[in-house]
């Protein structure tokens, strides 16, 4: 029993006994190991600090890898957005085209006697004044010189020159171009003509309006059918300004064309129409 005098043996035996006692006590009381519990309470904050710091540091390289991933994703999304924007532009274009075509269809339905040909604008006047343009239809499709050209909104001009697959259209803004017109509301007649002074503003002039004519601002002006070039009843535009001619015998009016002549894309060429339509206006 000499070894029992050894301090180490005594220590080991003490540890064993304490452990056994704590174990028995813990089991009977339903409590855990108080030593472990205390040590755990003391050490857990340090573990928490280190683990939190570690997680914080670990997120740094993730930041860079995530950044790469996000950069790629961002690039893909930008491409996707660009595609969608392109599609949206197409949709907007189709929408506007649809509106235009609907108007043209309404025009056709409203005038079954018209023989029409739809055409795309190919080129514009090379000069600074936009008064004429080229369309993609010519004699092959039956277009002839002096055929009226219109849009869903109103008249544009007439065909001045015809090629096999193309035609040149002169607009109503062109000085020297005249159109038999009348005021929609009062049926007073006049002559619409291009004017150099108004050309720049995209306006034209309605001349030879009787002094006694009932014409006011915002009156609609339409074709009278006189002259036989344009069918009767096509909208030309609206009265913007009214004045008395210098000689004082008649009135004039500044007309804003209903068709936007500065941004034409599609036009309709009226290849033929009932002479009655034109004649009735005479």
């Amino acid at each position, binding site marked *: 029993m000499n070894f029992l005098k050894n301090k180490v043996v005594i220590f080991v035996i003490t*540890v064993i006994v304490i452990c056994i006692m704590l174990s028995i006590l813990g089991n009977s009381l339903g409590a855990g190991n108080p030593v472990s519990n205390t040590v755990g309470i003391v050490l857990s904050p340090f573990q928490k600090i280190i683990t939190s710091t570690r997680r914080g540091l670990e997120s740094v390289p993730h930041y860079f890898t995530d950044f790469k991933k996000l950069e790629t994703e961002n690039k893909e999304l930008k491409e996707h957005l660009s595609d969608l924007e392109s599609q949206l532009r197409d949709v907007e274009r189709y929408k506007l085209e649809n509106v235009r075509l609907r108007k043209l269809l309404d025009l056709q339905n409203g005038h079954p006697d018209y023989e029409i040909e739809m055409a795309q604008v190919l080129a514009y006047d090379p000069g600074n004044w936009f008064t004429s343009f080229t369309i993609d239809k010519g004699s092959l499709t039956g277009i002839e010189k002096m055929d009226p050209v219109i849009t869903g909104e109103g008249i544009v001009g007439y065909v001045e020159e015809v090629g096999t697959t193309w035609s040149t259209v002169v607009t109503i803004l062109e000085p020297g171009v005249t159109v038999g017109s009348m005021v929609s509301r009062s049926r007073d007649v006049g002559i619409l003509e291009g004017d150099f002074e108004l050309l720049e503003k995209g306006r034209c002039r309605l001349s030879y309006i009787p002094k006694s004519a009932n014409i006011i601002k915002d009156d609609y002006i339409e074709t009278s059918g006189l002259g036989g070039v344009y069918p009767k009843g096509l909208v030309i535009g609206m009265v913007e300004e009214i004045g008395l001619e210098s000689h004082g015998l008649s009135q004039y009016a500044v007309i804003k064309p209903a068709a936007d002549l500065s941004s034409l894309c599609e036009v309709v060429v009226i290849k033929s129409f009932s002479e009655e339509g034109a004649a009735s206006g005479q």
Partner: protein
Amino acid sequence: MGNKEKYINVWTVGMFAFILLYILQTTLADIIEIGGIKPDFMICALVCLTMMHGDMAGAVFGTVCGILLGLGTGHDYAYTVVLCIFGAVLGFLSRIYLRLSLFNMAVVSGAFSVLINIVIFFFTYGLMGQSGFFFALWRVILPEAVYTIAVSPIIYLIFFRIKVLRPIEE
């Protein structure tokens, strides 16, 4: 510095070393995991201090080591008792047969790791009738021992550096 102060220094530094290693072992050791196996720095520290300071240091540090390693395992008493006994025995054997050197310490750390893990396996799984000892030996116990041997020089050098591996004259 007198012997008493040296003793206090060794015990204090040793205790703090175990606490610090335990915290690092439970928070950062998985960073250096290889194949899901991490080394046991606390075993290295225990072997190191025990081989230097003998059976009493082995028993006390073994107890501390056991309390810490047993935390949260549900086998805290078993760990405490086993490591206390193993520490004392290792200290006793070291006093007689083994001189502390890097090589000896590394080999003993490996052997100690194997022994401890076998006992743990026996008490935690073996008594519950679980088989698969050889699988555990091959997949856990031996790899951990090898890895512990590999890292044991680090602990040895750190302890040597902080002067807790200097003999205290009786």
